[in-house]
């Protein structure tokens, strides 16, 4: 592909048109543009947390605990490493899938399906938070604190509670957000203006929560 082709490609032409004319830049509903901008700013917050984690893990001379042992669980007589976190990951991905279905059915104005898929998504989200509560109480009972733990570097506890706590807060808020929108869908609130954009916007938030977990899972639990 020559440079001329790139300059004349449909995407870059649209890009120039959108930014150079004295008119609206983003051809999406304003709520969607605002949710995206919020998510970009939230990306910065979570990255700052993860970079803080990177920095303390790089600089500490204390031994870092083995995450796969700390988060292991005794299941059916087997000691499985990291199993709880794996299950939580699957629960969250499943909830992302059901959310995508809700967004899809919102385009067909299939109220019943939108409501149920959002309710299922909220259920999986609540399950995720429940498992996180279990994980927190297990670690606390084993002596893990924000200022120290018996398995090695004290920074492990502070990063763990800060990052998973902030993510869990996002999930909890998402569950409430989903339930509010789902019940409004069922009551026919969005039929008045035949405007179901909010379902897609809620979906963006929910997928973002799943996205952040992908990075936490990779860098904190697996690394």
């Amino acid at each position, binding site marked *: 592909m020559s440079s001329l082709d790139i300059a004349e490609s449909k*995407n870059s032409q*649209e*890009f120039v048109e*959108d*930014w150079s004319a004295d008119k609206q*830049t*983003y*051809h*999406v509903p304003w709520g969607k*543009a605002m949710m*995206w*901008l919020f*998510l*970009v700013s939230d*990306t*910065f917050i979570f*990255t700052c947390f993860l*970079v803080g984690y*990177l*920095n303390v*893990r*790089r*600089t*500490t*001379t*204390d*031994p870092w*605990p*083995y995450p*796969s*042992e*700390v988060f*292991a669980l*005794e299941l059916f007589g087997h000691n499985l*490493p*990291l199993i709880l976190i*794996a299950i939580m990951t699957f629960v969250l*991905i*499943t909830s*992302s*899938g059901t959310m*995508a*279905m809700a967004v*899809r059915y919102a*385009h067909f104005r299939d109220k019943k399906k939108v409501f149920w898929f959002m309710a299922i998504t909220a259920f999986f989200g609540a399950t995720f938070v429940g498992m996180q509560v279990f994980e927190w109480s297990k670690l606390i009972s084993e002596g893990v604190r924000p200022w120290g733990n*018996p*398995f*090695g570097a004290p920074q492990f506890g502070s990063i763990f509670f800060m990052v998973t706590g902030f993510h869990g807060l996002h999930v909890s808020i998402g569950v409430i957000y989903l339930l509010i929108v789902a019940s409004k869908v069922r009551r026919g609130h969005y039929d008045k203006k035949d405007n179901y954009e909010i379902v897609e916007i809620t*979906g*963006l938030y929910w*997928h973002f929560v*799943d*996205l952040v977990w*992908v*990075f936490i*899972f*990779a860098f904190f*639990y*697996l*690394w």
Partner: protein
Amino acid sequence: METHAEQNHHPIGIYLKVWLLLFVLSTLSYAVDYLEFQGITRWSLIIIFMLLKAGFIIAVFMHLMWERMALIATILAPPIALLFLVGFMVSEGLNVFDARVEYFGQPESATRIHVSDVLGVKH
């Protein structure tokens, strides 16, 4: 002007396929830990699976691949600044670590503690 995103009648198949793919990729990342890959193999596999998962979530679930360039650039360009932050902190972190070893006499490689040694082996 109606974009593809506004029509949004993507076949149900693409969501199910991506969903399945995310399951497979998550299982693979879990396998990295379960099979106890270490060192550069472990880190590169973790990063590859992570980026693939993130890419599919953003592109398909969040519909970004069907958006217009102006919105895509607004979302994806600012986080590039974060890569610089990561780079600075990696190099800074190495310096701090070296300083702690060299000037404060802290151990260069401490022995890691197994959980079973602290809590006792469970049966």
